């Protein structure tokens, strides 16, 4: 049976070129980057080269990048690190209502520690209004964290404007760029970004590497105390092969970005057009201002887990925001934040394209999906 992977927003395969770049650092140059001998210093050198390469891709200095194990770790460090370092300056943090669970849960934890959290609303497309962020900032605000682009509905946020407001008000601005890094050109200066999270496994790099950009001068409280790695900000033996892979993956994305975006937008729009032909189907997220590879829909009268398992039985991998599919048994907070009712959020389907997606894959999905929707609707008590 054909196997078609259309869940690139969840994770991506490691590109062959990335794997080749990583290989020497598993067995040949495997030493600990903190060791003083030449074996270790060789590892340190390649680590710093990777750091330099990635930093230049976002207009940052190398010493403003620290490597972590994941975007989740970076987001935890950004929020908790700033909050705990600045708790004497203030105790108010602003996030959006559509952030990734690692940001939401970090904020929840900080709330338990006595911090005040404001969740800025989004409109029906999932877009944050910069004015709402401005209105929410008060004299106790120490951090604003708004994601660059939604992992669920693909909507791209006006972070340059939001960053400008934060700069004007003297509040640090963090953005979770896990989904946008590698797809959209980012410049931390131009976009007024103070902290930024990025993830390796979203851009055809290995799992196990993430980064946190921290503007020079910003103090953060580390979460991992230990051997002084990453300028004392992140104790742990550095995962050199993963970081080498991360840097290589990022370079490939940068060089192929323009061409690849054009290709993906074409496929994505073909998919959206085709799916919306299905009766009682709707698009989630902004129709134009969305990630080049993301398409998220909801279908009336049916439930999402049934939809994705039926598609899985046809060899197609996608995801959903339905409650039944989440371990918490709650529908996607992102979809609810855009104004969907729970029963509508239950019927959602996220399709995310990638480097290895062919037009045939889209054609196959368009052939198979209407039949599946029809079948599940025929079992539903709510069919028209």
């Amino acid at each position, binding site marked *: 049976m054909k196997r078609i992977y259309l869940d690139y927003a969840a994770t991506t395969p490691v590109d062959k070129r990335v794997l080749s770049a990583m290989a020497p650092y598993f067995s040949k140059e495997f030493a600990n980057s903190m060791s003083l001998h030449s074996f270790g210093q060789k590892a340190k050198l390649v680590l710093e080269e990777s750091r330099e390469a990635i930093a230049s891709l976002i207009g940052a200095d190398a010493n403003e990048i620290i490597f972590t194990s994941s975007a989740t770790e970076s987001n935890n460090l950004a929020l908790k690190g700033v909050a705990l370092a600045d708790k004497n300056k203030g105790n108010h943090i602003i996030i959006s209502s559509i952030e990734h669970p690692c940001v939401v849960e970090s904020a929840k934890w900080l709330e338990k520690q006595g911090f005040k959290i404001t969740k800025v609303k989004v409109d029906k497309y999932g877009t944050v209004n910069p004015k709402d962020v401005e209105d929410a900032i008060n004299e106790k605000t120490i951090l604003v964290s708004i994601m660059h682009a939604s992992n669920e509905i693909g909507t791209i946020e006006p972070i340059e404007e939001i960053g400008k407001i934060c700069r004007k008000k003297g509040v640090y601005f963090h953005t979770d760029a896990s989904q946008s890094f590698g797809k959209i050109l980012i410049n931390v200066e131009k976009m007024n970004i103070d902290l930024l999270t990025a993830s390796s496994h979203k851009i055809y790099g290995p799992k196990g590497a993430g980064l946190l950009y921290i503007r020079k001068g910003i103090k953060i409280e580390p979460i991992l105390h230990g051997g002084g790695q990453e300028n004392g900000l992140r104790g742990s033996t550095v995962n050199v092969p993963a970081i080498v892979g991360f840097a290589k993956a990022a370079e490939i994305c940068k060089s192929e970005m323009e061409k690849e975006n054009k290709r993906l937008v074409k496929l994505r729009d073909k998919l959206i057009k085709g799916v919306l032909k299905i009766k009682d189907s709707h698009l989630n997220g902004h129709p134009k201002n969305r990630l080049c590879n993301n398409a998220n829909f909801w279908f009336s*009268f*049916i*439930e999402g*887990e*049934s939809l994705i*398992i*039926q598609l*899985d*039985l046809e060899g197609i991998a996608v995801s959903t925001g*339905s*409650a*039944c*599919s989440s*371990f918490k*048994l709650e*529908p996607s907070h992102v979809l609810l934040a855009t104004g969907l*009712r*729970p*029963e509508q959020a*239950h019927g959602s389907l996220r399709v995310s394209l990638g480097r290895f997606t062919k037009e045939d894959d889209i054609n196959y999905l368009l052939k198979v999906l209407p039949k599946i929707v029809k079948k599940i609707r*025929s*079992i*539903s*008590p*709510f069919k028209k």
Partner: protein
Amino acid sequence: MEKTNNNICGGLYTKKVIETFKNPHNYGKIKNADGIGKVGNIICGDVMHLYIKIAKNKKGEEVIKDIKFETFGCVAAISTSSIITDLVKGKTIKEALKVTKDNVITSLGGLPKIKYHCSVLAVDALTEAIYDYFKKNKSASSGTKEILDDLQKRHDTIQKSKEIIEKRYKKWT
């Protein structure tokens, strides 16, 4: 309970659940049903409607001659709905009322713990359908005091849970 070595879908569901989900039995409506059971809550994401047609067998006992379901819900919900129709079709009302959620789970080769509530929902749908039948047919022969009392208790419990859930999701109505 769960047979992880028989699992398709990476350990979430058993082979039997997936097969049942792929080819569900007895879905649809029954026109002029003798009893209808409606359970679940669309806001929660699981809704089952169960329709039964009752007839007398050769011994004069009331049996479930026909049964159909309509379900809005996940793989587990559709599978438990389908399997319960298999378990009780052709059975007497007395026998049907003995079916438990554990019977449903066992017939499917197991369910993930997080999906156990779907097996409860299937049994509730059947209970409500039979309760509805007796309400409409006060002279039904299976309606012994024992059965009716038990049924009333179960119906009251189901209604109470319904109210609790509706209250929890009041902001969405």
